[in-house]
């Protein structure tokens, strides 16, 4: 097991480096912080040169990421021009805010998706199965911006005193009292969770159905094992193996911030910051967020790989 984890970690490091390098090239080629200056060029040559120097724009684009990495290793991710703070500070506050809705959204969606998967698989083609299938398709069919608006309208506007609608506040969402915080995160977390429950419960149902039809489930029943143990011990562990990948991807997507949902609920997370940064060619902010979210994706894939090994001896022992 230890050797397996070590191997996975060692593979992750170059993976992260290559992924980040390619993303940086992409961002560098598409984002030019001097865009506004080209129109006034001879007149604003000073500003143009200053920005060229700050972002090392006269360096070859293939080498630029290395300069950025060098500075990043010393803890300097540059300064965000749109927010007016060091990028590290922006990442800290915004990342924390995003996590505050991402973690509950993930936990709720994982638990509900699992329960619905098991229910639907065990009651295949019954009314309950069709009901939840229909509900899942409705959830999937709703674009996230519509869903978020509907939820905001129902729970934030029609029933004002429940959750309310908040003005945008760029500060860190802590320090307030717990109940207030809970009220603030409920609606955005719910919007995100509904989307993931819809997708995951379909996937989980298929995985659970396939597992329940395996020969070893019949063997378990032939041993006289109770139905609960057959489902929650023998079947679940096998059915979870494909779900773990999905969950790792989901969680890393949630932690990377949701542009639409966070914007609609005026939630100062990574999503709105990323959009603002892109629109304003705030190169250091965009690169900083990409570094953070890229690392999250790689780390969660690593966690998924380790969980695979824990769940499945065939993977662990090969």
């Amino acid at each position, binding site marked *: 097991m230890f050797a397996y984890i070590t191997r996975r970690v060692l593979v992750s490091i170059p993976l992260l480096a290559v992924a980040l390098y390619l993303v940086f090239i992409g961002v560098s080629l598409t984002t030019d912080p001097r865009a506004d200056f080209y129109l006034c060029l001879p007149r604003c040559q000073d500003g143009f040169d200053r920005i060229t120097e700050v972002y090392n724009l006269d360096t070859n684009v293939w080498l630029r990421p290395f300069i950025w990495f060098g500075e990043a290793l010393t803890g300097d991710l540059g300064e965000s021009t749109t927010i007016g703070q060091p990028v590290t500070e922006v990442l800290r506050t915004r990342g924390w805010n995003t996590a505050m809705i991402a973690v509950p959204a993930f936990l709720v969606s994982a638990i509900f998706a699992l329960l619905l998967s098991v229910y639907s698989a065990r009651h295949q083609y019954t009314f309950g199965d069709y009901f939840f299938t229909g509900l899942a398709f409705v959830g999937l069919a709703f674009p996230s911006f519509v869903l978020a608006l509907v939820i905001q309208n129902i729970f934030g506007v029609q029933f004002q005193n429940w959750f309310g609608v908040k003005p945008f506040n760029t500060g860190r969402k802590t320090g307030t009292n717990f109940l207030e915080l809970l009220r603030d995160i409920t609606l955005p977390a719910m919007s995100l969770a509904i989307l993931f429950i819809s997708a995951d419960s379909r996937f989980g149902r298929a995985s659970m159905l396939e597992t329940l039809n*395996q*020969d*070893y489930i*019949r*063997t*378990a*029943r*032939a*041993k*006289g*094992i*109770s*139905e609960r143990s057959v489902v929650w011990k*023998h079947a679940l*562990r*096998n059915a979870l193996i494909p779900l773990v990948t999905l969950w790792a991807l989901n969680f890393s997507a949630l932690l990377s911030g949701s542009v639409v949902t966070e914007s609609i609920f005026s939630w100062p997370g990574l999503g709105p910051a990323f959009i603002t940064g892109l629109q304003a060619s705030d190169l250091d902010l965009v690169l900083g967020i990409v570094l953070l979210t890229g690392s999250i994706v790689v780390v969660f894939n690593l966690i998924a790989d380790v969980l695979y090994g824990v*769940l*499945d*001896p*065939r993977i662990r*022992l090969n």
Partner: protein
Amino acid sequence: MTYSNGSTPPPLLAVDDLSVGFHNREGVVRAVSNVSFEINPGEVLAVVGESGSGKSVTALALMQLHPRNTEITGDVIFDGMDLLSMEDEEMRSIRGRDIAMIFQDPMTAMNPVFSVGDQIVESIVLHSDINKKEAWNKAVDLLASVGVPEPKRRASQYPHEYSGGMRQRAMIAMAIANDPKLLIADEPTTALDVTVQAQVMEVLYEVQEQTGSAMMLITHDLGLVAGAADRVQVMYASRLMETGGVDDVFYRSRNPYTRALLDSIPDLETVKETLNSIPGNPPSLAHPPPGCAFAPRCSMAIPDCAEGVPDLVALDEPGHASRCIRTADIEVAVEATV
């Protein structure tokens, strides 16, 4: 088998008029039709037939492991208990303890995420009061008794680390863990290499002899049966075609289907140009032919064969019965060829 006072003991398993039907869009597919048989304590009953003849479905129905959309009628009395009217919980206490089952494909019949030892321990702990540690030691002993080498080390290995033959041995160990009164082996060697088949059958017969349990051996391979079964029953298209002592069925068969099956066994002593096979395919159980289901493929069929399903008629030898309207003619044919 007779007691000292001359009365015969009650059978361990008495199946009376068992029918199993699956519901599907076209209606009900009868996979087992009016099957009756008995198994005595310690006896080996072989159930022989082609794929789809209803032999596995019979076994699953006995264990109440049939799929949900299944209709079962008839009586199954095991050790004085009526299995078909039993509550789930009661049935679970019988499964794995009194009746254990060995399945066809050992590659898929074991849970890949639990060690072989754990899977045997689970069965032991479920049906007895001993603790996990004692159960583990028992599991190791069981693996040793079915010929798994280095049982201590192998017990903590996972199914994918076992070869097919070893896995089937482990399945046998799991099945005999609670000294069942009846062992149902559903095509236990079909998925194995030919070279391993004989070894596994040997282990199976050995443990059956040691534990003294009765065995219902389901197979399509008559050759497996000859040496070790006490009685044989031949199934075709959901019905019993012939039933009797192993010698009666092998040497005095009075049923054209059984004889066709026997003829299709390759014979090493007389070199033949081609292998004999039965022409045609088994009928659809959703739309069975009128009359005898084997008639369309039968070399002895006469027009009367299509008129109603023949009865299973008792013959001279005790326990020997055949379902064929030309039983009398077959006797003549046998004597003529001898």
